[in-house]
């Protein structure tokens, strides 16, 4: 029996204070944390349930035309939000390409940023893993590792971050709002995650006890709304993590590409990623579809008005 305390604070400041106790972990949707606990990969002594904190479940328009997305907004609610799907279609497409309907109903924005890697060696307590147990080594490097990092890896760790959502967020200059005992601060999404280096157990810039309270998409990012796509290559058609993925956001003025923002996931397999990025750019150039396609983010969907296969 794995015993732990369960705390449900009433406010963000109470939550941050509660998380100051060593051995605490925040719980929101639980779609990753509960699996990790059941598998014995992590064993927090105290769960701080932030899923019902007031104000964190809102999607608010900003004066500059952007949106502020509360950390506890569920993936499905965000993807189907009319403003988000209209102004930031690549974000909606990325969200709908992740996991399954059930998981998207439970998983949250903050949890998506902070989910752990899907490296099989991290999930196997019998394997050496510097991320799970610093200093124990990395069995993935000499193991079954074709799904793991080819860029950004280190001798200590070749795991990747599995998020779809973060890929278009990086292309669109999203900001992460963080609350801690020292107050509030914000970090660009692009700077939020850390490369493994020699400390793969440290995955983000969050200090112990800090809480992600919101993600902000700037109004300026809406200039890409008419030509933005997310593309994801999976081992099966649905309900799988990416082998590689790419977001492509084009700002087109007078039939000229004024600005291009390609963004790849952390699992860049160089040649595959290049092909996926090229195809994502071709899809974005053809224009954002009126509705998210039947298979969001499928690399096999035809390019409207374009070549049948890229």
């Amino acid at each position, binding site marked *: 029996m794995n015993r732990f305390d369960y705390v449900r604070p009433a406010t963000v400041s109470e939550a941050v204070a509660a998380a100051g106790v060593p051995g605490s972990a925040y719980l929101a949707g639980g779609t990753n944390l509960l699996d990790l606990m059941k598998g014995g990969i992590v064993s927090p002594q105290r769960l701080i349930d932030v899923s019902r904190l007031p104000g964190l479940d809102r999607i608010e328009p900003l004066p500059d035309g952007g949106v502020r997305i509360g950390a506890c907004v569920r993936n499905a609610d965000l993807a189907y939000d009319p403003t988000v799907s209209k102004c930031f279609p690549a974000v909606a497409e990325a969200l709908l390409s992740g*996991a*399954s*309907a*059930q*998981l998207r109903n439970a998983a949250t924005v903050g949890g998506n940023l902070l989910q752990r890697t899907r490296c099989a060696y991290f999930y196997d307590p019998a394997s050496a893993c510097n991320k799970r147990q610093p200093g124990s080594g990395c069995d993935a490097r000499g193991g079954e590792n074709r799904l793991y990092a080819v860029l950004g890896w280190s001798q200590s760790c070749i795991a990747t971050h599995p998020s779809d959502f973060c890929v278009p967020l990086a292309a669109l200059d999203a900001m992460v709002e963080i609350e801690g005992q020292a107050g509030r601060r914000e970090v660009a999404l692009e700077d939020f995650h850390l490369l493994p280096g020699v400390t793969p157990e440290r995955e983000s810039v969050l200090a112990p006890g800090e809480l992600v309270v919101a993600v902000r998409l700037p109004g300026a990012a809406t200039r890409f709304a008419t030509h933005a796509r997310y593309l994801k290559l999976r081992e099966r*058609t*649905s*309900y799988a993590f990416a082998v590689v993925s790419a977001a492509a956001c084009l700002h087109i003025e007078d039939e000229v590409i004024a600005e291009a923002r390609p963004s790849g996931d952390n699992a860049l397999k160089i040649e595959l990623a290049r092909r996926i990025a090229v195809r994502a750019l071709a899809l974005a150039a053809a224009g954002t579809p009126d509705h998210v396609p*039947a*298979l*969001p983010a499928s690399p096999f969907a035809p390019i409207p008005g374009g070549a049948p296969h890229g």
Partner: protein
Amino acid sequence: MLTIEGLTQGEALHPVQAAFIAHDAFQCGFCTPGQIMSAVGLIQEGWAADDPERVREGMSGNLCRCGAYRGITEAVVEAQRSLAQAERKEAA
């Protein structure tokens, strides 16, 4: 909270249940309550309509180790059509 136990109206099967039987959409039956409730949710949300590709994508979170996926997709498409038809009749 609606579960499979609350789906029938008296003795009458819900259209999704009837479609699952008509299309042999199960073998061992272990996953069936979840499959049917997911299908009811998917039809209510109206995202998939009667497009088999969308139905497969929307139902992908429910695994069927007997491999009745073909029948499941057919059943959901048919149930969606019969429910839409019933709605049209009601509106007329």
